[in-house]
């Protein structure tokens, strides 16, 4: 019996040694250590042995089984490693092949500019106000201190639908509507939207474009508040090192009126082609809300005051990204829109 066991062990070890892959080794395992294998048979046959021999033989069988198992496991580990290595060798790829692009789209550049501006002012406690694109002459002009025969109406040629209705030429009617609706309460709003003017489309003109305006109305609103607000805005939108300057200007709905320049974000003020060698870039128009505008919308200009400002997202985008033709914003060329996908933070 002992000899038989030893022989079995030698036989098993030889076969383990001979097994060249995981599969063959598993066959060896089943053949020798499985339920139907000779070692199990031997253990089963123990019952036939005299009782005094059983413990000794039992121990011996276990020793041999453990020895075989141990060798087999070592061999198995080695063969498994070998198998994995073989697999890895066949699985090698060319990592320089192009990746599979993740499908994605992005904001239109004007939406991007508008949302950036909206988000800045939202953080300052502003709300976003919107209004109709087809507007009454009253809100578009009259309520903004532009009576029917006002010379400044010459500045904008409009698309009229009827004598009293037109495509809005500015987003300012939203201000007039908001003031009317707020009925004397304080206001802090930003009004983005599409506007229309009777212009022929070319590289710098578009019959449809966007505007974004802001309005603050309340007691004690000062021109210094306008300046401080615009300064923060300029630094947020165009870089912390930006400086602003105000130049007197004229808009019928504000008095005093100003235009705001920012120090050139390309050359920093030393003069380049973007700022036309002046060091300054005109970005927006602003001013203190004209008392007539306040009065027409139900505010008492002796008690409250306000400031307003407005700019063109197209102009901002054209300056910021160097877009050379305003028509690009409206042709929906994928090669154009898809360029505005990445963050600039």
């Amino acid at each position, binding site marked *: 019996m002992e000899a038989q066991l030893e022989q079995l062990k030698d036989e098993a070890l030889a076969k383990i040694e001979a097994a060249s892959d995981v599969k063959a080794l598993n066959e060896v395992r089943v053949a020798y250590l499985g339920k139907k294998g000779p070692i199990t048979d031997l253990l089963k046959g123990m019952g036939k042995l005299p009782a005094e021999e059983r413990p000794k033989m039992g121990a011996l069988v276990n020793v041999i089984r453990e020895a075989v198992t141990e060798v087999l496991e070592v061999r198995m580990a080695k063969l498994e490693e070998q198998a994995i290595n073989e697999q890895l060798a066949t699985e090698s790829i060319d990592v320089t*092949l192009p990746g599979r692009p993740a499908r994605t789209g992005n904001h239109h550049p004007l939406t991007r500019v508008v949302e950036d501006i909206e988000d800045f002012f939202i*953080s300052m406690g502003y709300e976003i106000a919107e209004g109709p694109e087809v507007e009454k002459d009253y809100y578009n002009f009259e309520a903004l201190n532009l009576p029917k025969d006002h010379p400044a109406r010459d500045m904008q040629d409009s698309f009229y639908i009827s004598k009293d209705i037109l495509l809005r030429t500015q987003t300012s009617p939203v201000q007039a509507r908001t003031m009317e609706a707020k009925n004397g309460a304080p206001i802090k709003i930003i009004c983005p939207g599409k506007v229309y003017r009777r212009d022929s489309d070319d590289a710098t003109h578009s019959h449809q474009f966007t505007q974004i305006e802001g309005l603050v109305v309340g007691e004690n609103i000062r*021109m210094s508040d306008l300046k401080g607000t615009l300064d923060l805005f300029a630094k947020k939108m165009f870089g912390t090192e930006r400086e602003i300057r105000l130049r007197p200007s004229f808009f019928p709905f504000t008095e005093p009126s100003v235009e705001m320049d920012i120090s050139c974000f390309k050359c920093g003020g030393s003069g380049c082609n973007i700022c036309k060698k002046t060091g300054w870039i005109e970005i927006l128009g602003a001013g*203190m809300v*004209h008392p007539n505008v306040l009065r027409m919308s139900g505010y008492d200009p002796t008690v409250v005051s306000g400031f307003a400002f407005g700019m063109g997202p197209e102009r901002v985008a054209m300056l910021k990204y160097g877009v050379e033709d305003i028509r690009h914003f409206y042709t929906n060329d994928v090669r154009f829109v898809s360029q505005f996908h990445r963050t600039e933070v």
Partner: protein
Amino acid sequence: MLVSTKWLSDYVNIEGIAEAELAEKITRAGIEVDTIIDRSQGMTNVVVGYVKECVKHPEADKLNICQVDVGEEVTQIICGASNIAKGQKVIVARPGAVLPGDFKIKKAKLRGEESNGMICSLQELAVEGKLVPKAYAEGIYVLPATAVPGENALPLIGLDDIVLEFDLTPNRSDALSMLGVAYEVGAILSQGIQLPEITYTESADKAEDVLKLRIDAKADNPMYVAKVVKNVKIAESPLWLQNRLMAAGIRPHNNVVDITNYVLMEYGQPLHAFDYDRLGTGEIVVRLAEEGEKITTLDETERTLKSHNLVITNGKEPVAIAGVMGGLNSEVHDGTTTVVIESAYFTPGSVRQTSKEIGLRSDASTRFEKGVDPARVIAAAERAAQLMAELAGGEVLSGSVIVDELDKTPVRITVSPDYINHRLGMKISLEEMLSILDRLQISTEAVNGLLVIDAPTRRQDLRIEEDIIEEIARMYGYDHIPMTLPVTESTPGGLTPYQAKRRTVRAFLEGAGLYQALSYSLTSKEQAQAYALETAPVTELLMPMSEDRSVLRQSIIPHLLEAATYNVARRMDSVALYETGSVFLGEQEDGLPQEVEHVAAVITGKWVDHAWQAETKMVDFFVLKGIVEGMMDSLGLVEGLSFEQAVIDGMHPGRTANIFYDGERIGLIGQIHPTEQKKRDLKNTYVMEMNLAKILAIETAELVYVQVPRFPSISRDIALVVSSETSAGALEHVIRNAGGKLLKTVRLFDLYEGANVEEGKKSVAFSLTYADPERTLTDEEVVKAHDKVLNALTTEAGALLRG
């Protein structure tokens, strides 16, 4: 407005200030200087020459050989101008001169003859052709006989001047005159200004004896001043005057006309000169035109008038359209000897309307339209009379013929310094304010701590307290305004739910692979209602610029299809775009169309493209449907969403559906009809358009967290054969109804029609999962529920179960 600095220095001392610095100061104080024009353009070696000899070139008909005295020598110059002649004083560009356009003058030989320089026209010296006096428009310019050979020619013709081009805002019409500019510059430089001194000798004859004046339309013409000058000799104006006009952008004609233009530029008061004899009646009557009355204006155009147009007549017929343009019949001509000078106040509204109707804007009408200074009406007439006496040898008849009912009372503005400081957020002292107003020559008194101001009539833009605030602030300098932030009730700010959800929709669609498009609201009548979810009368422009942009859109799809075609034509054959924007429907009670925000999308070409492994998937209905479902899911609205096969104009009849939410139609989705695709040069193209306003108005249910299941779910697959007509949606409906509360998900995972499936039938496979959040399900429970499902499918949907 073009401002010659040489001319300006007549009134204000700008010596020692570089033009660039002056321009910057003017800009920062309120009037934008657009360009600084150096009229010399850096030219040198341009001198006066005296043509001593001039003979035809033997070899060339059109050339002349001239011997020209250029001061230091007499030199030979070949000249091709037809008006060159012996004895002229001319402008010579000598060898070494560089003329505008980098034109270098060198010694040359022309047909064998030496030429040492060039005799110049004004155009060659960069004077605009339309400003060159007609006599010299086609040839060289001839200088007066007093010019000295060899001297620098540029000052003689006013090209040693620097001109500032103002970009005036509509409120600053006061700066449409040299005197107005002088007031502004004087204030900026803290200097007084020098007004022209008007003195001349009057003739013994009285103007009122030879000219009668009647105003029949005083509402439109409250003030009219006429002066009569006799014995004028029409001639060229002196060079200095011509030069100033050219610098101001006006072409010199003759001394009388030039004088009216000169005074127009100097005072901002338009004048007109009539030939007294041509008037013929010794009378001027200002009245409204008769409807249909005709007049031929100076530009030789016959114009038909309306009954509200103001005209100047000789008592019989119109001789000028008031404030806009004179008539040809009373024009000053070479033989004119007696001139009537007209200086009037025509009301802005009247002139604006007439000039707009006639389509004629002149230097005069632009000034009348903005309102001229009532205080300068008489002064300007006197100034013109003086110049006609000095420069045209005229005798000014004594007195003027005047009708004057114009209210010249200055506007009084009372404002407190505190109010000014309060609005500006500054602390400017009363003394400082008074000093600024004094510099601006705005007469001000401090009364009980208030500023009491009489606004000068030349500054018609000063009407209310805020106008004074602006005057003080701009002169004090906006740079000195501090930076503060509004101190208001603190408000939370933020987006409305509608605005926030719109951003969610955009973010979802972009994440799903669509680029945002932005197209025009205006479109053609043909396109306006194509694919519209809802149609209503279209909103039409009164005066469209083109048929293609004449009405407002009622759907976005045509615009996205146009964009798709545009891209495909540029070899971008895979396009995925969406747009959110308004469509315009009918007319509401307030007369405005209803504006409804829609969202629309287009996809065409490849959806998945893994080129190097050739794994490509073209777009199809279900790609877009999945996007719609995902979009609605992002708003928490996927539960009520359903799709129903539909037939819609321009869409593929078998691949189109209406989209419903809780039974209400909210959109459409499908493939463009192949015929339509072909017309637009598109391959298979899918579109959707939905009423975004309606969708975003639906209140989003609260997000409810469901515990992650702790007990395993059990899944069962079903394979069925059903009639081809049976929709997947109907089968799913049967399954869900029968499945009971244990049934958690139903997923269609296979669909097959063709070989091995009976004709008219299709094979469909679903995967169902059953679960109970509280415990592990037993086999029996699952079998029971699943049997119900199978039973329902066979009895209700006529399904044959497979395998």
